[in-house]
């Protein structure tokens, strides 16, 4: 519930006079829904998931309030339940507590203050409960991710480690120096892969736990910083690297996240090139306009098969057997974009190349 919004309550009673009276008394303090029977009440519960408190009269023609609560609890467990009755027999009190799991028992005739304080208390309980449910869900998804991590560690960490161990065993039986050098280079590649995995994991946790920090970003400087990192790979791998920046207005966002996004997309663009192609190319365009930045990264590499394109942002999904990939890169990109309110789209053709386009809105509040 947003602050300042009225607490939404539902009152069920078969006497129209009671309903009208109730609504007249409380409509200034609460958003009041009234129902003359339980089927009408169910319609409200279905359409208003934000109902915090349900008050119900015990004596109704089709069923008792306790019966209604007992039944309602199965489908709508969240709203706090309060029973209103003029008949104070101990049996029905015990019943309502045990079967209806009610929060309060309100005696007729009620005083406005009694009802108000009951609703306020009930609402606090509802909020705590909802918060707990949300936290539980967060916890569950954290556990699920942990499970994925644990599984990926056996392959993405243990795999390269065992390869290196295997290589070390094998080298004892080898004498040809050229072959040994070849083996050593492959072992180095395995170790680099491990390092890559650790760096990505670190990035993942920094993103998960860290708060975004909005500062003014000069994309000319940012692009120059990143370009410096990729210059060596561009020369070594013989990939033409073209980048352009168009920025005529200040732009505020989280610089670390944007750098991470750009370097991940660039790593992919450089990694997934066609091995022996002569005209390997990576193009970056950054345009800042109307308080929005659009970054596109295009390569003419191996492309992404249509079967895999929907899954590329999934954690630990690797769409290709070529080159190395931790399966975390694009997942991290997507996660960062969610935090910045941005989005990403991809266009790709097998053996022709891939273009990733990122849109990020500027944060108008500036630095905080």
């Amino acid at each position, binding site marked *: 519930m947003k602050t300042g919004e009225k607490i939404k309550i539902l009152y069920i009673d078969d006497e129209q006079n009671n309903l009208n009276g109730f609504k007249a008394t409380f409509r200034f303090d609460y958003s009041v829904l009234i129902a003359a029977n339980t089927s009408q009440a169910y319609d409200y519960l279905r359409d208003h998931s934000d109902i915090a408190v349900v008050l119900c009269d015990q004596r109704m023609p089709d069923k008792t309030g306790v019966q209604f609560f007992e039944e309602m609890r199965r489908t709508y467990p969240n709203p706090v339940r309060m029973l209103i009755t003029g008949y104070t027999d101990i049996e029905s009190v015990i019943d309502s507590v045990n079967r209806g799991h009610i929060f309060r028992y309100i005696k007729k005739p009620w005083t406005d203050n009694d009802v108000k304080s009951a609703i306020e208390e009930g609402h606090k309980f509802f909020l705590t409960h909802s918060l707990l449910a949300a936290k539980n869900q967060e916890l569950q998804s954290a556990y699920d991710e942990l499970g994925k991590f644990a599984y990926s560690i056996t392959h993405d960490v243990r795999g390269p*480690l065992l390869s290196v161990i*295997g290589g070390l065993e094998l080298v004892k039986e080898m004498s040809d120096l050229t072959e040994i050098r070849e083996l050593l280079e492959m072992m180095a590649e395995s170790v680099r892969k491990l390092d890559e995995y650790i760096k990505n994991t670190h990035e993942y946790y920094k993103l998960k736990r860290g708060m975004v920090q909005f500062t003014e970003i000069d994309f000319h400087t940012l692009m120059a910083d990143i370009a410096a990192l990729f210059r060596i790979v561009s020369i070594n791998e013989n990939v033409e690297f073209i980048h352009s920046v168009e920025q005529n207005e200040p732009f505020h966002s989280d610089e670390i996240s944007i750098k991470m996004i750009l370097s991940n997309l660039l790593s992919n663009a450089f990694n997934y090139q066609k091995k022996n192609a002569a005209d390997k190319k990576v193009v970056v365009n950054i345009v800042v306009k109307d308080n929005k930045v659009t970054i596109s990264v295009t390569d003419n590499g191996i492309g992404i098969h249509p079967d895999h394109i929907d899954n590329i942002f999934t954690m630990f999904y690797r769409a290709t057997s070529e080159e190395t990939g931790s399966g975390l890169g694009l997942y991290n990109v997507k996660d960062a974009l969610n935090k910045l309110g941005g989005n990403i789209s991809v266009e790709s053709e097998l053996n022709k190349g891939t273009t990733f386009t990122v849109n990020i809105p500027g944060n108008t509040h500036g630095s905080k």
Partner: protein
Amino acid sequence: MAQSKKLNFMVVDDSKLDCFIAEKIIKNTGKCESIRSFLQARDALAFISSTPPDEHSHTILLVDIQMPVMNGFQFVEEFEKLPKEIIEKYTIYIISSSINETDLSKVHNYKSVKQFLNKPLTSNNLSVLLG
């Protein structure tokens, strides 16, 4: 399989290093007639299904589990759909770094898989398996 006969080997693993290691170790046994490595399970499957079975040869197939695109289990499932006279010519060993119980127990579900081997492949455990 007769002990005296030389064997063909096939390695299916997305790690180049693991393929290299397996090739070297297998060649060192001296029991190897031919060896082929595939970085992609799909390529291996295509090769197997398009190669007519040779009466006089038998192939030992070492397959990794966790591979992108088509994993080891998916590979075995597809392999088991091939004609009987092809299947007969291969003995499959799953070789993996996995210590995941689900992976390990899954291995028993496949008729064509003879055994699970832990990575890394060494001359010792290869010679045990070759008898």
